[in-house]
């Protein structure tokens, strides 16, 4: 178990006072039994919103809903949280052959939030992509199990793509990012989700935070202390979900703190509404994750 102090600060400056607006924030670390525990958290908004409430969305992500008063010229949001995260334990591969998934899914009758059924079909931001599908098929040719296929595709993508924070934007389609062979964690994750779905493996997009701990003599992980995204793949009834981070070609572990999952970025975007986390509104954000001494 690792204990973290997480701090997220988002700041906006508006050139012209903005009108009243409603915003959703998906930034609170999730409560995942056995994996992640949210010990405490608080979110401060300045100036104070006209309305503020919280709800849990379909996929179980906690959402902070605020209505901002008109006439804003700046907006600051600060999240401070204490999170406990389990170390990644090497697991036995209990997943079936990829071809056997279809039969398991046919018998799977639950359609609750974590049901694989939500993550089989193309979604709004991840439509069918022929190039990604053939890449995925080639990358997983030698894989004997679903888990092997997930890792094989993740590693292949990591080799194929270059991390480049300037190449893409939040609305860049995964097909385009794949053609560019460049992008950020959002692009890596959405491309991999699309690839897995094309193989018949249900795959979700996970949003969260990443802590960077440069190992001795090795470079820091890309996207150091940042908002992050990775992939959650369904490896059959027995193995369940496995998390994989294609940006860093590793299983998600103690350095990953998850906020929530959905079909694609749109389901778990950190900021939804008139405000966005990039581009036009001169927004900036920073993430700090510090290991605290328990």
């Amino acid at each position: 178990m690792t204990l973290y102090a997480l701090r997220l600060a988002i700041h906006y400056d508006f050139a012209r006072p903005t009108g009243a607006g409603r915003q959703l924030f998906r930034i609170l670390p999730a409560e995942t039994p056995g994996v992640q525990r949210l010990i405490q958290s608080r979110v401060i908004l300045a100036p104070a919103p006209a309305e503020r409430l919280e709800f849990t969305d379909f996929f179980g992500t906690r959402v902070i809903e605020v209505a901002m008063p008109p006439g804003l010229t700046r907006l600051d949001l600060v999240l401070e949280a204490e999170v406990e995260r389990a170390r990644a334990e090497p697991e036995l591969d209990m997943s079936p052959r990829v071809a056997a998934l279809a039969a398991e899914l046919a018998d799977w009758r639950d359609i609750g939030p974590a049901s694989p059924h939500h993550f089989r079909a193309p979604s709004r931001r991840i439509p069918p992509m022929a190039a990604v599908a053939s890449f995925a098929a080639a990358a997983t040719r030698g894989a004997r199990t679903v888990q092997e296929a997930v890792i094989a595709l993740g590693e292949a993508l990591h080799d194929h793509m270059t991390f480049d924070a300037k190449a893409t934007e939040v609305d860049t389609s995964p097909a385009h990012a794949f053609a560019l062979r460049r992008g950020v964690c959002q692009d890596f994750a959405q491309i991999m989700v699309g690839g897995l779905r094309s193989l018949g493996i249900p795959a979700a997009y996970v949003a969260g935070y990443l802590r960077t701990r440069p190992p001795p003599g090795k470079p820091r992980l890309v996207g150091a202390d940042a908002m992050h995204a990775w992939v959650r793949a369904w490896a059959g009834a027995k193995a369940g979900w496995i998390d994989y981070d294609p940006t860093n070609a590793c299983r998600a572990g103690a350095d990953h703190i998850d906020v929530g999952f959905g079909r694609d970025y749109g389901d778990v975007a950190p900021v939804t509404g008139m405000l966005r986390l990039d581009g036009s509104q001169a927004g900036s954000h920073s993430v700090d994750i510090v290991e605290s001494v328990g």
Partner: protein
Amino acid sequence: MDRTAQDKAGGGAPVRRDRGLAGYRPLPGVPDELIGPDGALRPLWRPLIGHVQGLSDDDLTRAFGRADQYLRDSGVFYRQYDAGQSVERPWPLAHLPVLIDEADWTRLSAALIQRADVLESLMADLYGPNRLVAEGHLPAALVTENPEWLRPMVGVRPRSGHYLHFVAFEIGRGPDGNWWVLADRTQAPSGAGYALEGRVATSRAFSDVFEGQNVHRLAGFFRDFRDTLLAMREDREASVAILTPGPLNETYYEQAWLARYLGVALVQGEDLVVEKGHLMLRTVSGLRPVDVLWRRLDGSFADPLELDPASRIGTPGMVSALRQGGLTMVNSLGSGVVETRALMAFLPKLAPHLVGAPLAMPNIATWWCGGAAERAAVLADPGRMVLSPALGTGLPYDRQGETELAAGLGAGKLAQRLGRDGAALVAQEAVTLSTTPALVDGRIVPRPMSLRVFLARTASGWQVMQGGFARIGAAADPSALAMQRGGAAADVWIVSGSDVPAISMLAQPAGPYRRMAPGALPSRAADNLFWLGRYVERVEGIVRLLRARNIRLVESGRAAGPMLKAIDPIAESYGLDPAQGIPDGLIDTLAAAIASAGQIRDRFSPDGWSALADLDKTARRMATRVTPGDDAARALSALLRKLAGFSGLVNENMYRFLGWRFLTIGRQHERAMAMTGLLAALADAGAPAGALDLCVELGDSVLTHRRRFTMGTSRETVIDLLALDPMNPRSIRHQLDGMMAQVNMLPGASEYGQLSDLGRAMLRCQTEVATETPETLTTEVLDALRGRIAVLSDLLTGAYLR
């Protein structure tokens, strides 16, 4: 002597025309509404057919003409999409109604009420525990991959306790004479308003028969549903509104019509805002609560924040308001999911689980090709199967290009297709619909038909509209039903053996009479009224300017040069090409007026709308042939008269409340701006000779000038009459006085004696003009004044129209 008179003058028995009845043959293997299995005319139809046979050709034409005229006069339209263009079309009324016996209708109604209950409890399961999937009655993918299953609505219990309040079913008679459900409509069923308008039109064509036969009335259905909508409010001060996607929607006309008929507001997504869990309407008097919303917008568009982020016609926070129980929505968001075609394959098996009984009326046989047994069934008998998207909605034959005949693929290809895309496909038995008589070229012929039946949930449970509309095919082929491809719509008469109650929409309340307060005016409606006023006035100014130019062209020929030099820059500032007889810029301004009026169709009398549409049509026709000079001058005079007609209708008939104030302010503002500009250009020392007279002519004040001043025009007389004289309805001063009076009557005009920003700016403008003299009101002062008047529009917009 016309033929009717001849008929009458001939004496003796009236001439009976056969009208093709002797040769009328039901299609083989298909039941017919008119002729029973015994080959005899069904007794139900005798009065109507007898009546039609008794009419001369001219009388029949006149009867149909009365119906068509009614629809035209009421402006009953629907929108048709054709080669990427969307155009308004008159409602295609098939003049002969479809007659259905009350006993048959009663059975059918009971079955449809049961189906509505089945769908309601299906909704409750899909947005609740999802027991049907968990127990294996329904494949998971039909739910999880369904774009109409709106995840944010899962677990949100509707405040009213019900998901469905208003549904429609498309039904047809199968070969055995029994009714079948062809499609369920639960998203936002359209057509109820058209059904009522079709009824009025048809009863005008056949008033004698209609009165003589006991036909059930429709008004009671609407009255009860309106009362239900009102009763579902938790806040009695709050209002009921119809949510429309806007004027480009194919049934916008009907939505505006229903809003008028039911006396509720017609709103668009941008008119609404969510505040503290409640839905509020932006009005010129501030935010006003809306507690019940009849949604005519597809669910996923309703909230860009939690549903489709690309929607530009939704309201951010709508889902949040529903989650907090802040309103009742008819039907609840996500109700489109139970329209899914593939569900028809499962409903027969689901019904016993949901309502404890099998379906009382079957739906068309449907196979979801995601199952191996179903695929085998389709492959075994492809001849009668139509393939279409499993998650599609509506009638399969309405969506050409979406459907294909299974047999048309060939066995090998079909097997391949089903193996690959099976889960995305349904196979449905090709429909063979019953026929009903239609009059084609004066002869009665059988045509396929289907019925759309409407059900509303009222305090006493589901109520079935005693009628509806029938879709009549343009040819014997049942796929010719679709209106987009030449089908027609007929009224449906439910004929009783005994008297039917007469019902009026306007129930008399008990107790002493109290005048109701007029409702709040939505800001968007006020904005459109303001701009309608401005555009109509602008059109008038343009027409006068162009007429004056063309008259000078005719009267002075080449000598008109200097005057044209003065006029043309003004014309060009309006975006007009003065070389055109009826310039495109005039048509464009008129189109802008129509667009504004179209946004507020629910506030317009059909007469006002017709006058505006007529003006537009006339101008467009003229534009194609009118040449500059005398021809144009006369055409423009004709347009001016039509404009006066429209203005008169508005002025004489419009209720003197907030809406009228914004329209008036718009007109006066535009007129003040135009006159200030004209005087700055034409009463300037540098203007050519004759410019002052032109000014007086454009200000429609020639007679007044002659009467007020015994001399010819001078700068002083013209400025006095057209700028400063408060008695001249064309003067700047008169506009500002009028605007001031209206602005003072607007909500929040002054708080404890303190004027609003608009009120202050208004008063300054008015005072300035009131204290000028012809000598001091120079061109420079006019230019500055024009700028200050322009700002009034921005202030008004900021205060009321956003």
